[in-house]
Every structure is written in C-alpha cells, then in structure tokens.
C-alpha cells in the first residue's frame, strides 16, 4: 500500500487555527490543504515553528507528513543540499521531490592544478533551459592513494576552493577520519561508505562528526538492510544513504536495476523503514568496468546515469565532465522532477529570435514551457529573424489556453505595451498559432494590429513565412 497523504482536517487540527496569514494563505485550512498536497512546507508557518506552545503540534505535524524516504541534508558553509524526501514510486502518484544530486569526482592522486581546474569546471557548469539554470551539486573526493595525509590535503584544497557540499570516498576509516578532520563544523559531508567489513569504524566516525553515512553492499540486499538496521538502531544514526552497487554488463546491470527498484518499492509501497533512505548510484563505475576507448566509457556512464536517475537514484557519482555526457542528465532531471500536476511556465514578454529588424514578422505563442521550447526550437531551425510574443497563458498550451480564455487580445496587448514592441517594428501584423484561430478577432480588436492565422504546428512556420512574409504580401496586408 503506497503512502497516502493525511486528511487536510487532521492537519488543520494541529495548526494554530488563528488564520494569521503569515504563510501567504488566507486561512489555516487553505494552508492545511497545501501541506497535504505537498505544495507548502510546515516551515512556512512562522507561529508553529517559533512559538513554544505549538512545539508538540509541530512534532506531530512533521510525523504526519514524514516521507517514506527520509530527507537527508548535506551541507557546505555556502550550500545546503537536500536529498531523498520522496513519497511515491511513480511520478504520476504525486510528484518527485528533491532532484537527483549529481556529484563529480576528484581524487587524491591529482595534483593541485588538476584539482583546481576540475573544481572550476564543476562550479562553472551551467545550462540555461526554460528560464532555469541547470547545475551540478556535489564534489566526491576519492582516495586513490589510501594515504590519510594525502586525502586530508586534498579535502583541504577542495574545501578552500569550492562552495559545494562533499562526499568523502574510501573504505578505509582512517582515511575518512583524516578527511573529516580538516573540514570545519559548517560542513556536513556524506561518508562513502560503510560496508560489511568496516561498518563499526565508519558508524563511529559518522556519529562523532555528525556526518551522513552511505552504506554500500554490492550484490547483497540482506547485508544492506542488516547494516541499515544496525547502524540506525545500534548507533542512532538516522541520516543514511544506501548503495546496492552499480554494476554494468551481463548479470550486473540487471541486478542493479532490480536492486534500485526493489529498494524504492519496499520504501514507497511497503513503507519499510530499513530501506526508507535516499539511494546512491555510481555511474562512474563505467570507467572501471567497460572495456573500450574513453568515448565508450563516457557513453555508458551517460546511459547508467539516465537509467539510475529514472529508477530512483537520489545521488549520482560521476567522472565525466564532458558537456555532452552531463547535458542530457541535467535536462532529463529537470523534466522528471517537475510537478506533473502543474504545467511549467516560462516568463512572458518578447523574445528576439536571431536578429529581427523593424520589418521582421511578429509571432505569438504561450508561456507553457514545452510549447515555448518547441516554437523557439523550430524558429531557430528555420533561421528566420523574428519577434516572438510570449503571452502569460498561465502555463497552458495554445489549444487549452484558448478554451480556458487565457489566450486573449488583452494578454497580447499587455506584452506589446510592456516591451514597447510598437516602437520596435514598423508594421502592424501579428501571426498567431493555427490553434488560436478562434480568437483572431478578439486580438485584432484589442490590439488594433492585423492578425494572420499561422500554421497548426510550429514546424510549418518557416514554410509559412516564406509564402506570407514577402514585400508584396506585406503591402497588401498593410493597405487593407
């Protein structure tokens, strides 16, 4: 039986019931509904967090809304990163919460310059997509030398030069300890990893340094849950991350997929607490298990990352810093973690495609991210210089927004005015989507511009413009 949200009324009973409005909602009941829909967090209610009288209610509320997969926090002095905190197995059952964190490795055999260069690339990685900046999240420091001093030195260099939270990777407890020792109190790293051979020492370190502990048990789920139980109950360490092992090739990849799926299924559907932790995958293992040239390894690292992200990994450790390996990962992550209940919107306004002039065509579309992306992509493909009016359709696609009366002349006018488009172009012609034909009259009335109904699909735009946007046709249009 999957996780079910509590009834709004049960949540409401625990709220202050003062309708103070500090959460931004008109009343406590509205806030309760947002809470059970996971559209708001308890922390958005200042009274319950700050006032002593509500302390008990706060604890109860947190319990009611506790996700089956524990939310674990990693920290650097500059950044806080949440992983896990998942409620459901399937995205459509609610939504996925904290996007899979992507870590890139640095190892302690690298010289200082290499380390600094890698840090620079990790920190600078950024891709702009539907108005968002897609970035990397963590640095995983691996001990290749197995020398505590060397590891401590590397951790020191990374912490002095990077703003990102860290994963310390070694199976040798003294190495991990040396690394932990050089980090300041503001760090909360992930220790990777406790295994069947070193768990006592690793658990003690995690306890002493209040760090998050990963448990790795490749190929053995019984050992994995035994260790999770032992470490959580025996040492009182609650912030754990589980790794069933990332294997490639025959008998390996199928096992990995099975293990990730079983673990998350048992957490989300059986609410089994010993597997209710974030999962970590290591696409980096493509580098040590795939035969072939470097491109093959990178290719398989990309394949593993996409697979594991799709099948429930909350953290991924990767090696490639190649843009083509990482770009599809951060873009797929963005899509996978959007709320399927809410359409994604891009900011409205006027976009310049290519280098439009005062006689370039003016097109209209909606601010639904997918519609917008496709239209922009088609326009760029066709290499025509155009002005693109993006109206505020509240994140709805063209046909839906027309039906919902969000695609109106007033909305078009609003953008023309705010962007001063009437000063930028000499003509007064708008091209609207074929699917918005119904509202062409309304748009003409509101804007005073001549409206031409364009093609049903934006892939036809370039063909359409070739026909319609000629000087003779324009003359005809502007005269009538």
């Amino acid at each position, binding site marked *: 039986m999957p996780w079910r949200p509590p009834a709004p009324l049960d949540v409401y009973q625990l709220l202050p019931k003062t309708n103070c409005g500090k959460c931004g909602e008109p009343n406590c009941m509205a806030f309760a509904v947002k809470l059970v829909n996971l559209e708001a967090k308890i922390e958005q209610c200042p009274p319950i967090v700050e006032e002593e009288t509500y302390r008990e209610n706060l604890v109860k509320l947190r319990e009611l809304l506790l996700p089956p997969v524990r939310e674990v926090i990693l920290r650097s002095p500059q950044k806080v990163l949440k992983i896990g905190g998942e409620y459901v197995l*399937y995205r*459509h059952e609610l939504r996925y919460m904290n996007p899979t964190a992507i870590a890139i490795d640095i190892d302690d055999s690298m010289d200082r310059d290499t380390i600094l260069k*890698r840090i620079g690339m990790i920190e600078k990685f950024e891709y702009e997509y539907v108005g968002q900046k897609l970035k990397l999240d963590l640095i995983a420091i*691996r001990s*290749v030398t197995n020398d505590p*001093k060397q590891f401590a030195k590397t951790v020191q260099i990374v912490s002095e030069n990077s703003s990102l939270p860290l994963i310390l*990777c*070694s*199976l040798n407890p003294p190495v991990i300890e*040396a690394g932990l*020792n050089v980090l300041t109190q503001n760090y909360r790293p992930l220790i990777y*990893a406790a295994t069947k051979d070193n768990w006592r020492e690793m*658990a003690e370190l995690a306890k*002493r340094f209040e760090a998050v502990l990963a448990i*790795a048990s*490749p*190929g053995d789920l*019984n050992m*994995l*849950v*035994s260790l999770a*139980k*032992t470490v959580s*109950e*025996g040492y*009182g360490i609650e912030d754990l991350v589980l790794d069933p*092992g990332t*294997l490639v090739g025959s*008998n*390996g*990849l*199928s096992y*990995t*997929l*099975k293990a990730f799926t*079983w673990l998350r299924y*048992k957490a989300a559907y*059986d609410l089994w607490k010993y597997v209710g932790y974030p999962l970590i995958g*290591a696409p980096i*293992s493509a*580098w040590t298990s795939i035969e072939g040239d470097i491109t093959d390894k990178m*290719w398989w690292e*990309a*394949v593993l990352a996409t697979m594991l992200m*799709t099948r429930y990994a909350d953290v991924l*450790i990767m*090696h490639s810093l*190649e*843009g*083509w390996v990482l*770009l*599809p990962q951060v*873009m797929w992550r963005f*899509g*996978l973690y959007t709320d399927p209940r809410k359409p994604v919107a891009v900011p409205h306004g006027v976009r310049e495609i290519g280098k439009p002039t005062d006689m370039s065509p003016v097109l209209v579309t909606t601010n639904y991210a*997918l519609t917008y*992306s*496709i239209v922009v*992509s088609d326009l760029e*493909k066709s290499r025509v210089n155009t002005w693109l009016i993006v109206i505020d359709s509240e994140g709805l696609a063209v046909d839906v927004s027309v039906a919902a009366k969000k695609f109106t002349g007033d909305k078009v006018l609003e953008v023309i005015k705010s962007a001063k488009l009437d000063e930028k172009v000499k003509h007064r012609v708008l091209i609207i989507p074929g699917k918005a034909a119904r509202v062409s009259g309304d748009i003409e009335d509101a804007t005073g511009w001549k409206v031409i109904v364009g093609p049903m699909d934006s892939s036809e735009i370039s063909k359409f413009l070739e026909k319609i946007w000629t000087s003779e046709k324009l003359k005809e249009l502007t005269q009538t």
Partner: protein
Amino acid sequence: MSEDKNKKNASERSSKDEDALRVSEILGILAKIAGSLEKGIVELYNIDISLDEVELKVPLQTLETLPIPIAITPPPKVVTEAKPEIQAGVAVAKAVEVVGRKIVELMSLAFEEPMMKFTGKVVEVKLGATKSEGGTRDKVIVLGGHELPPYYYLTGYKPPHPPAFGGDVFDMKIGLPRAVRVVFGDALDNPEEWARVWVNKFGAEAIDLHLISTDPTIKDASPEEAVRNVDRVLQVIKVPIIVGGSGNPEKDVVVFNKVVEVFPSEGLVINSLNLDMDLEKVCPNIAKTNTVVIDFSPMSVEKAEEINRKVYTWIPRDRIMLDLNIGGIGYGTEYGFTAMERARLGALLGNELLQHPFNVGAANAWGAREAWITMDPYWGPKEIRGPLWETLTCIICLLAGADYFMMLHPLSVKVIKSLREYLFSEPKPSNPEKALNWLSAKIPVV
C-alpha cells in the same frame, strides 16, 4: 500498574543502553589515540583536548636513569618503536574497546522481495508474417504479453518478449541531421538501399517505412506510388515492415486502404490511426487482413482508451499497439514517460483498453535542439549529442515499458541492443565486489 512498570523498565533500559554506547564511544576514541601513539605518529586537526586528573604510571627502571625524579623530560629522540608502557596501555585499551563495542552486533535482517498482485495482461502482438502465415518475412517479432511492470525482476517471472528496434526509412529525401547523413551516405537516396543497410549492416530488426511523399503539401504521391515503395522494400529485406503515413488524416486513410488491399497477408504494421481520422473508412479494410495497427494518442491516457475502444469495433485487440508519443529529452519526455507508466500500470491492474504493447517514435528525440544544433565546443560535437539523445530517450521509454522503437541512428540501435542483452540477463552478478572498483581506481582525466 504493570504498564507503568514496563515503561519505567523500558526507559531504564534505554538510558543504560545509551550509557553503554557513550562509554564504548569514549573507549573507541581512546583506543584510536593509543593506537596512534603506538605508531609514534600523532596528527590532530582542529581538536582541543582538555584533561583533568591525569595519572601517569611510570616504571621504576626509567626513574633511576633520570637525574631529577620529578620532572620527566626525556631528551628528544626519533621514535622508532613505541615505549613498552605505551604498548601495554594500547593492549589494555584495545581489550576494553573490544569489550565496549560488543554491544553493537550486526542485527541480521532478511530482505523480502516485493509482493505484487496484478491481474491484467498486455496482449501479444505479432509483427510480420512468414511463408506459412501467408507472408514473405523470414522473421516475425512478437511483442507484449507482460504481466508485471517492466524490469522488476520478481522471482519466477520472465518477461515473455523483449523489446525490438527498427530503423527509420523515408520514401523521399528529407532534411536529416548530419550525424545520420554521414552514416548512411548514398543509401539515403533510395528507400530499398537505406532499408538494406539498416538490416544487413546495422542490425535493425524491422523497417519503419515513412511514406511522407504522400503528404498533399509535399509531393502528394498517389496511393499506387506508395504501394510501389512498400513493395520495393518488401522485396529487398525480410524483416517486418511498419508502414507510416504522412500524418494527413484524409490522405492516410486513402493510402492505408490501398496498402492493406495490396498486401493483405504480410503482417504489415500501420503507423498510425488517430482520432482525427475517419476510422470507419479505414478500419474495416484493415480488419480483413492480418495487418497490425498503431493507435496514436499523444500523451493522453484518456484519449488512448477512447481510440482503442473505437478501433475494437473492427480490429481484434491482439492486432493493436499503442503510441502515447514521446518528446526528446528537454522537450516533453516526462509527459510521454508518465503517460506510458500510467497506461502500463492501468493495463496490469485490469484496464483492458490499455493492454497493448507500446510503440515509441524515438526519432522524435532529434526534435530536441540540443540533439542537432552546433553548440559551444564545451557541449561536444552534435554527431555525438544526436545519437546519445536518441539513445537516452529510448532508455527512458524502455524503463516505462516500451516495446517497439522506431529509430533514426545506427549507433543508438547498437547501444540499446547491448543494453537489452544486459537487462534480459539473470540479475546475479558473479563478482559483485567489483561494483566498488571505482572507489580507489586511478581514472584518466580527459
């Protein structure tokens, strides 16, 4: 009364446990310090140690050699081996540590595999027809038959049919990404050669022949011409053929009618039927043959039910596939992915309207601009990005349960075929510990 007592006992026990835990921790730290002293190396970072009541027990022998009995300041010398007294201390501390730690023993727990109950089954659909079935194909492909969600690996269940991968061929020259043009070269000039290269050189398991020249706004090729193209491809390769229309609902009806009339027994697959078409004008003719159809319902599970319900009027369920559409990564992949997950779960839970194998137009991945445009060199050459985009889009669909993939680039087919081999192997790693090799390996930095 007894309840109170229990509570008291419980709290006593837990505070005792906590004490024991704390003691064992302290002993553990002491053992670490002692161990370091033993090696003669002590490096402490950011640690303050405050001591009160430190008792030093020094053997007499040492005292005798010292000039002043109270101040114990031995001359500095290189420590080669720990002093006997420290060695003794370490031995004691270690013994105590072991005793102290004993309280946390491994608590063995068995992982019980998920128990799932599903009652529905996806129908089995056969693409192509062999000689004995009235066709001319050497090989047929059977898809579907699933009784559990994809790639769950529950004991005792073997997925009946693995997914299959076909190569896209167009009946006329169209704008294709450079990465694709480079691989096929001159073969792109005619559909037969293109199909032959796909099957013989690149291992396509079926051919997706897209008759886009029939589009009234492109060439408006006649149904007779379409049939000729299908025939040419049927002659040169012996794998199943998926026949795609132009997407124009009126013209497709005419073209599909002609195609199934001329090839009624080849087990062709019609790609695709949708709600914009006049279904009653084409389905009855298809029904008379052994043709399979793909019902197309872009990203809508509800509309998928609607079109399937209509098509059932004429065509048996085991000759219907479902296409919920997919966008390339960044361009709506999640909508298709989630629609497929929902539809498959619904099918397994007993919704008969959704119990059909999925078709995926993976070539849509190339619609993502990141798959084909020239970008800043950091993002790599588009010749890599393109096929990778297609491969990863396929993998996402694969995990949602997709059965048949129409693909554009041979490299994507190659990778996804090895992936299929891995995924359909027994999930029992021979050397699981290898999973951690990456931890300490020296990995080249590119």
